[in-house]
Structures are given as C-alpha cells and as structure tokens.
C-alpha cells in the first residue's frame, strides 16, 4: 500500500470509528441531558414568574418558546419567554418573565451563555446585570443606557443597563428581548398564546 493510501485509510477509519462510538454515547446520554435541561427550564420559569405553581407550554418555534406560569388555582399569572439570540461569542439563551399583558418584565434569568469571562459573562451575574432587568416597563421598546448607570434607580422605566466593556453582549440580549416581546405580542393577537389572566402589579 502506498503511503498516501495508507494515510487516507488510517484517518478515515479513525474518524469512522470515533464517529460511530460517539453516536452510541450520544444516544445513551441524550434523554438524560434533555431531562436535565427541562428541569432547569422549569426552575428558571418559577424564578422569573414569581408564584408559579404549574407551567404550561403555549408556543414553540426556533429560538423562541413561550410558557405560561399559573398559580395554585390554575389562573395564568405571567408569561415566561425562553429566547435565544447571538451574543458576542455564541448564542445566549435566557428566560424572561413578564406579566400576562406584556407590559412589565418581572425579571430575567440566563440559561446558556459562553461570553468572555469577566466581561460578557457578567450577564449571568445578579449584581452587574440581572438586577437592572427587574420590574421594567416593556410596553414600549426597551433601550440601552450607555455609559452604564451604577444603580437601578438611575435608569428610566424601560431603560436597561450596559455592562461596561461588554456592549455587544448587552445589546444582543436587549435586541433579542425586544424582538421576542414583539413576536409574542403578535402571537397573542393570533391567538397562539393565551393572555387571559390577572396582572399582578
């Protein structure tokens, strides 16, 4: 066998073997991983829609899932918007809790992000980012405050703080939040997402 044939043969078989092997591992662990993710999603929904007792999935499309959080009596108390958008490094996935009429954001929680540690990764930090999302008015478009404010009180009712040094990441989340709010409003109009419930204010 000539050298080049041998090289091709060896690399191909190494690739095929490892591919086949990994396919097996993937099959074995897939269900378990999906279950873990499901559990995490449920935890985050309860965190962003306070008082959630049961959860109903209303709608799902690429990069956007809408859940409804219900209280003990089964009354809808808020919507949890599970959305992803491109950040600085990779997709950022978050869960945003709003009231049923989409006028107020309860809070935001990050599910997945791989931003730069120390800069963009601060989106998952309560003190530097998440607390600036609490109780925001989202009846109009959310805007970005830049340069960053130091406390939530300094921000306008629908203003979101920037993370210093990570404007792209902050903007990415803001844009995803705005576009998903817009989309959910449309879904409510189309009747695909229920908004029957009492707003907790």
């Amino acid at each position, binding site marked *: 066998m000539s*050298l080049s044939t*041998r*090289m091709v043969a*060896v*690399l191909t078989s*190494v*690739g095929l073997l*490892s591919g086949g*092997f*990994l396919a097996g*591992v*993937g099959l074995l*662990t897939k269900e*378990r*991983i999906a279950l*873990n993710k499901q559990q*995490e999603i449920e935890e985050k929904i309860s965190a962003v829609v306070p008082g959630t007792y049961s959860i109903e999935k209303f709608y799902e499309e690429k990069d956007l899932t809408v859940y409804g959080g219900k209280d003990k009596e089964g009354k809808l108390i808020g919507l949890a918007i599970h959305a992803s958008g491109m950040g600085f490094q990779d997709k950022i996935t978050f869960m945003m809790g709003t009231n049923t009429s989409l006028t107020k954001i309860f809070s935001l929680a990050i599910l997945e992000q*791989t931003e730069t*540690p*120390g800069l963009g990764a601060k989106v998952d930090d309560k003190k530097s980012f998440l607390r600036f999302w609490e109780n925001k008015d989202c009846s109009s478009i959310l805007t970005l405050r830049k340069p960053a404010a130091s406390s939530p009180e300094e921000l306008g009712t629908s203003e979101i703080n920037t993370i210093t040094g990570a404007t792209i990441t902050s903007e990415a989340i803001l844009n995803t939040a705005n576009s998903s709010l817009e989309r959910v409003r449309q879904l409510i109009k189309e009747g695909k997402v229920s908004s029957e419930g009492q707003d907790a204010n």
Partner: protein
Amino acid sequence: MPTKTIREEFVKGLWDENPIFRQLLGMCPTLAVTNAVINGFAMGLATSFVLIFSSVVVSSIKKLIPNQVRIASYIVIIATFVTMADRFLAAFFYPISKELGPYVPLIVVNCIILGRQEAFSSKNTVGRSLIDALGMSLGFVLALLILSSIREILGMGTFLGHQVMGSWFKPWIIMVLPPGAFITLGILLAIALQIERKTKSRR
C-alpha cells in the same frame, strides 16, 4: 528508552515531571477552573479519563498510524474521549457540567494530553503508557486540588462548600477571580522550584 522501572514511570508524574509544577503544561484549565475544589477535582478527573484512555489507544495503534498523520489521528482520538466525558458530565453531573462550561470541550487542546501521546505513548508499550498516564493524571489532579483548595479557602472561606474559616474571616474575593489563580500558581511554582533546588544540591 525504557530504562526506568515501572515504579519510576508512575512516580515521575507526581513530582519530577509533574505536568503543572514542573512541565508547566495545561495552564488554561489550571488557572480557569480552580476557583472551587469541586470544579478543580471534576476537571482533574475528566482530564485524567481522557489522558488515560487516549494513551492506551494511541500506544496500542501506534504502529498502524503513518508518521505524517499522527497528530491528526491523536487529536481525533483525544476529541472522542473528550466528547464522551463532556456528555457524561452533562448527563449525570449537570451542575458541574454547567460550571465547567466550555473548559470540558477545551480538554482536547490541553497540552498535557497531546504532549504525552507525542512524547510517550507513541514510543512506548501499552502497559508503560498506561502507567505513565496514571502518574501524570494523579500529578495533575493533585496539583489542581492544591491550587483549588488554597483558592477556595482564602477566597470563600469554604472547603468543598463547607465553611472552614471562622466568622472572623473576611473572604479574599480576589482569590476566586482570575488574578487569584495567577498569584497562587506563581507562589506555588516558586515553592516547587525552591524545593527542587534544595533536593538537587543535596544529591
């Protein structure tokens, strides 16, 4: 080449050729995930798993691999075990997997692993490669444990999440942040060098 005894082959990874303190390999995970003992330990185990299995596989098929494509083949083999470790952590240790984040997939570029394949497994028998990988892994895990213990105790006042420092202790937050990793590693390397010098002059 096999002039060392099996025992020496194992022990060298602990000190003489310790991947972190003596060879300064695999610095990325060493600095990045040693902010808590549990993370350092999980990273150490995941890396050990990959190193041990890759060494065994590489040393057993070393004669089949043409020299020109050896690095590519090693990387595919290493990547296979890394992916396995990553999936396994995500399935059974989800919180740790989230905490380690991108650093588990990054084991594939950990120089310790490719370095051992290139420097050892590709030239030695399966048995010796296994012993070498075990020693190197243990050396790596121990180094990560030392580093992460110091950082967690000083940075959070806890060990494995349990409070070990009294209430008088004010955590040095910087120790769990990136600078703490560099400071701790620097001091440990200085100590290691000092010990090495002393033992050398005694020989």
